[in-house]
């Protein structure tokens, strides 16, 4: 039992599982720690020795009725404008699972190519920059935040001409 400065750190150790269980279990990060790790790839499932069960979806949990679960699937049509194009289009964000799919669809729709994305420099190489308006009314660069966060907060898309893009973006 590790005692430092009179404190038994095992007592306050954050762990998943019933208190008093002696075996060392693979740690599942408690959400307050994990929430900083926003870039977590959704595909990788953390493995854990049983119990507790792996993070696969459990039937009927959390207890939310299906009519509520569908609610964020309906709010998905967003207007897409492109600088220089005569009229706007609309796309259903829920049709896409990630950024590459979305960008490809936009490229097809408006017949342009988007440049290469990098976190530091945004989109380079094409002169077109995809931006979006979020729930707070701010215009953001497409690609900075995880896909789920983007798709739930995106209200409108605008494909700006590279020359129009303010340097701050």
């Amino acid at each position, binding site marked *: 039992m590790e005692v430092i400065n009179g404190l038994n750190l095992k*007592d*306050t*150790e*954050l*762990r*998943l*599982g*019933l*208190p008093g269980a002696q075996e060392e279990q693979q740690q599942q990060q*408690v*959400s*307050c720690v*994990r*929430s900083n790790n926003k870039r977590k790839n959704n595909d990788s499932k953390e493995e854990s020795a049983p119990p*507790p*069960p792996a*993070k696969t*979806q*459990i*039937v*009927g*949990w*959390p*207890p*939310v*009725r*299906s*009519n*509520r*679960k569908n*609610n*964020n699937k*309906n*709010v998905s049509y967003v207007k897409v404008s492109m600088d220089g194009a005569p009229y*706007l289009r609309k796309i259903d964000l829920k049709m896409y699972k990630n950024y590459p799919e979305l960008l490809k669809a936009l490229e097809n729709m408006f017949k342009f190519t988007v440049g290469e994305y990098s976190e530091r420099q945004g989109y380079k190489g094409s002169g077109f920059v995809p931006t979006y308006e979020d*729930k*707070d*009314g701010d215009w953001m660069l497409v690609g900075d935040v995880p896909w*789920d*966060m983007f798709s*739930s*907060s995106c*209200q409108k898309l605008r494909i700006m001409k590279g020359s129009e893009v303010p340097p701050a973006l």
Partner: protein
Amino acid sequence: MTEEDSSAKMSEDVERYLKLNPPCSSSSSSSAVAFANKSGTFKSSSPPCPEHVLENVLESVLQFLTSRCDRNAVSLVCKSWYRVEAQTRFEVFIGNCYSLSPARLTHRFKGLRSIVLKGKPRFADFNLMPPNWGAQFAPWVVATAKAYPWLEKVHLKRMFVTDDDLALLADSFPGFKELTLVCCEGFGTSGIAVVANKCRQLKVLDLVESEVTDDEVDWISCFPEGESPLESLSFDCVESPINFNALEGLVVRSPFLKKLRTNRFVSLEELHRLMVRAPQLTSLGTGSFSPDNAPQGEQLPDYAAAFLACKSIVCLSGFREFRPEYLLAISPVCANLTSLNFSYANISPHMLNPIIRNCHNIRVFWALDSIRDEGLQAVAATCKELRELRIFPFDPREDSEGPVSGVGLQAISEGCRKLESILYFCQRMTNEAVTAMSENCPQLTVFRLCIMGRHRPDHVTGKPMDDGFGAIVKNCKKLTRLAVSGLLTDEAFSYIGEYGKLIRTLSVAFAGNSDKALRYVLEGCPKLQKLEIRDSPFGDAGLRSGMHRYCNMRFVWLSSCVLSLGGCRDVAQALPNVVVEVFGSDGDDDDDTVTGDYVETLYLYRSLDGPRKDAPKFVTIL
């Protein structure tokens, strides 16, 4: 009040009545009529026998008794009182449709005008029950059609209702006035069309959170021509387009319409037209709250003016596909709102703020956790009259972001001291915040906290959530409904058993260490009626510890626990008045689903008429 108290009080009332209304001149006809003719048109006849007199008097008094608990007490006094109570009961509430047969109902009560029937247990909403388990409305509509042709009101929850049932209802009850279907399924727009068309006195047609098949029938057009008695029309759960012109026409000829809840196929422009036609509305479900077309400049309808004109609106819901730029149009009604339901709208704190700032009179507020702790703080700052709060998860998965926490909960507890009911979904919580709520909100009767990550401890201290829930049961002395979550040991349940003396409904998931937990609850909570438990380490010993209680409970549900067939059988054999059903979650008709000894789901309930005859193959009744 105990049964003795209430019947003693009944006698006092009767005595007092007799002193004021000496029975010498009363006839033996219904004294409800006699009572109405107080001015003295009593027929005098030969001296009535005392028993008739008493029954007449009792009838007159009982017509004022509407509480079913009181009526149940009255019916236990003696046979005479049982008879009179049965004659004067007009509304019946059946909490479990399998607790008695329709024949028993129609045999006892001869004059029913209103029936409330509940079917499946709540966990069925979360796919824990295979389809076609039961709770069919059919036998009930058949029986009541014969027995109560004057029936006016039917309210069903979690029942399986077919179009044929609705057609029979529409055909059988010429004076039918109110149909409410909550969390029901099995019917479609064609069934609704028949009701709309044939029930000429229909005042209320409320479809709430029900699954309605799209039969591509224009049911709105089926309402008859001419002035309509409609007062309430709710179809926000209907996932199919409606004939808007017909709806508008219906609204125009419904001068008594107070409540209108449209579905997401009604656009903002259409909503505007409806509001202009019905400024007398008190409750409005706003549909999609999204315009069909891009704004046309000057032709933009003045939505704010429409809301301004609807001075009586106190309840708003809908916003199913809302556009944030139009949200402020509701501002004119905010100050009068008592109920606001944003729970289908992905509203950020930034969008919520200008609205909620003016909602001083709100008593009921439902929203998504997209409003974040910040939004909850705004609610706490303004909504001092808040009685009921529900926060649903925008992203209902275990590992989603979790934008609300103990911070929001504590803020609400500090700002909304009159809070009575809360449902709160979150990813992380602290004992401190839960304890704060228990101390700040003594009026709480319903506390339902769902920490979505299973077995999650207090995220600050790492301790189980025992102390927080313990504080709730200890400090909230009026608590009748409790749902627990997070990491919980047997200790939490010892608190519930020790302090939860008024608890009627308890929901448990992924909690506890051993059978002791179940025993604490079953031995400690005398008022417990509905117990629903899933995925917890409770076994036969725990089940056995409640034997003395099951006859006095509405139901017990235990799924994915550690029950054996033998243990369940013991209960079934010991309690002949309790029906014990076991089944698996996949409803495989072919096999017995009770593979070996392990019981996946146990559902037991008291019943006056023994096991049901309509159980599907995958259900085994022990």
